[in-house]
């Protein structure tokens, strides 16, 4: 894969962040500060402009937001996927070389094989998600007369559970395959470094007690009687 997998996403992030800041404040500031300024943690007053997806169309976006909200809902334990920015993560991450098959063997023939041999189809990750969303929504239209995003939460959960268990018959894709890849990506976004677009304020890391990218625990290897005391650090050096 390319070492620059995240470059388009990062550039995109900067561009979007820049639009949040009045032009006058740009003069004389370095980019890192601009990024920081766009962070709600340091600039709580600045209202977030709604994210404009660049991969998903409106229908796909509605599905993704609704599915994220069911897969990791906001509750007393910790942040929900939507407020964390997971839909934004998906919109960006699915545009990386990784999601476009850069590290998968993609040559045919594409034979059916037992589950022990993994996914043997010809779609890359981005396509699995896009084809899956379309088929899932089509199923909802036929069965319930509405798109997934418009269904009540209990029904959404029921459908996601059916997909997970392989009990949903979708056109053109295995519901199980779609679901497992979607869930994987949602978790990736939820827990990945904030630079990838989600995990806002490192809240998912705080929830589980992960110190992020500190990567030095010499002083704590043999401590037994106290919880690890420090909060998380992210790749940009921010402390949570």
């Amino acid at each position, binding site marked *: 894969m390319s070492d620059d997998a995240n470059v388009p996403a990062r550039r995109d992030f900067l561009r979007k962040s820049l639009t949040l800041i009045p032009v006058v404040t740009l003069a004389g500031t370095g980019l890192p500060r601009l990024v920081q300024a766009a962070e709600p943690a340091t600039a709580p007053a600045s209202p977030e402009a709604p994210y404009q997806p660049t991969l998903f169309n409106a229908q796909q976006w509605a599905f993704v937001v609704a599915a994220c909200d069911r897969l990791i809902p906001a509750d007393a334990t910790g942040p929900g996927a939507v407020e964390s920015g997971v839909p934004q993560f998906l919109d960006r991450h699915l545009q990386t070389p990784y999601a476009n098959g850069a*590290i998968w063997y993609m*040559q045919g023939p594409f034979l059916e094989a037992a589950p022990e041999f993994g996914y043997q189809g010809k779609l890359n990750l981005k396509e699995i998600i896009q084809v899956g969303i379309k088929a899932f929504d089509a199923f909802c239209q036929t069965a319930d007369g509405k798109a997934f995003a418009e269904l009540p939460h209990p029904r959404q959960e029921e459908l996601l559970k059916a997909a997970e268990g392989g009990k949903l018959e979708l056109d053109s894709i295995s519901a199980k395959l779609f679901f497992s890849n979607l869930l994987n990506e949602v978790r990736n976004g939820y827990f990945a470094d904030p630079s990838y677009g989600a995990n806002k304020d490192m809240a998912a890391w705080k929830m589980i007690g*992960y110190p992020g990218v500190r990567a030095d625990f010499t002083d*704590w290897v043999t401590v037994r009687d106290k919880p690890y005391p420090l909060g998380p650090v992210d790749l940009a050096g921010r402390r949570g």
Partner: protein
Amino acid sequence: MANIQPKVDAVIVGMGWTGAILAKELTDAGLNVVAFERGADRDTQPDFAYPRVVDELEGSVHRRYLQSLAQETVTVRHTPTATAVPYRQMGSFKPGTGVGGAGSHWSGCHFRALPEDFKLRSNVEQRYGRNFIPQDMTIQDFPVSYDDLEPHFDHFEYVCGTSGKAGVINGVKQPGGNPFEGSRSREFPLGPNPSYLGAEMFYKAAREVGYNPYPIPASNASAAYVNPYGCQMGPCNFCGFCSDYGCLNYSKASPNACILPVLRLRKQFELRTHSQVLKVNLDSDGKKATGVTYLDAQGRECEQPAELVLLCAFSLYNVHLMLLSGVGKPYDPASGEGTVGRNYSYQNLNRVMMFFGKDTQANGFIGIGGGGTTIDDLNGNQLDNGKAGFVGGGIIWARQPGSGPVRGVSVPSGTPNWGPQWKKAAADAFRHSFYYEVQGACMSYRQHYLSLDPTYRDAFGRPLLRMTFDWHDNEIKASQFLVNKALDMCKVLSPQSMAGDAKKAGGHYDITKYQSTHTCGGAIMGSDPKTSALNRYLQSWDVHNVFVIGANAFPQNNGYNPTGMVGALAYWAATAIREQYLKKPGPLVQA
């Protein structure tokens, strides 16, 4: 027509552990060496520099440090009559690419094989009788002994700054080490690393059950160290990004940190990166290699003539190159004839996950790849195989290479995979759970082998390597036996819940789950050219100026990680080349 380069003394294919060792040894002997590496050049700076190296998404999802399967992969099937399908996404094993190979993103568990592992077949026959070995099991003795390799085990550990505690030195038992190990000529270069909680609890549990726990020999330096080549290492800080990641600290032994700093300065050494070797070229009667054909960084097909060809491309790719080039005769499982591809084996890895309450500060994010605690009480001659009912043993260990939430948060079984309950379980478990593993041996069988795939091709138009492998009853029994022993041991620790993943009767090899990159055999060393591709010096029986270095040489796999043995075999072969072959090129063993 291929672009023909000026002839050199030796060509090395692959710049991982074995390639770096051979390059050092052969340039020491005054040879001009050209090494080809299919991937990029890599060094601690800038490739493993903080903070980018600890980006979990890049390291564990985009797999920045691993081979891309888009270019080259293998196909897999369970039986010789089935149609194989490609290994499309990284799962069961994770070959490396780039300078350092898998040796730059390994974990660092650095074992020596036991003396009895070298004579497995004769030992089992002597202890339990000929009929104890299943009909289709094709295990063999190594054509070398522990004593042959002892100086080379020792040297490789000193190159790596391996941190541990000797159990036996010159025949005398040492407290704190493995009492069952082969005798060492001296202590480890560095003492053991400190124990994290899970490793400390392992000592307690193992002792209570009557086992003899000892620190896993770890090539993750426990203190500042200068190796015999003058390369400096710094103490491991338990960064928690060890397995799958390059080391940010010069602490984990790697070709990059421990050998290449010397090699890079040598005039007789040339490293060509982004250069994919396509095949070994043979002379008209196929008895001697004339060099290799490779694609250079610009994609031009070139020929590199050489007197000596060293295949150091990792076990699987060594066998692939032999099959593509006609070095040796391909193995046919129906007739049992041919040797290249024969006796492919793997590793029988299993896990016991344990969950504790909030007072147990397991802190899985604190991690070290090779450190931890293990036991040999169920390995080698300590295990009564007659009673246990299978061939081969294994070890149980506490190992904590470092966890992070993108790599996955384990939750107690029965927890849903998403929704509020999953979230709660993940939040509760992350800091308060750890696992122990059972690493079992894996025998070789008539029907498990490597060959060329008839259908699928790599990005260079060559047939992919095809792996025919499945779990045999013997390994399934071993998995169940050893996991049960581990569960018994874990009960001592009274976790709130625990779960083992022993293989089920009739279960099949699942390529989607990581189970170690210990792919062994396929071009094994032996004393009979009818049943081995290589002689005792890892020299091809058929083409005397080709040496094939790697775990491909193991006739079967034991309960340990392979690299300690792989490094020792590399030094052993290098010594034979320097002391015997260069003086009188030709077969070092008469067939």
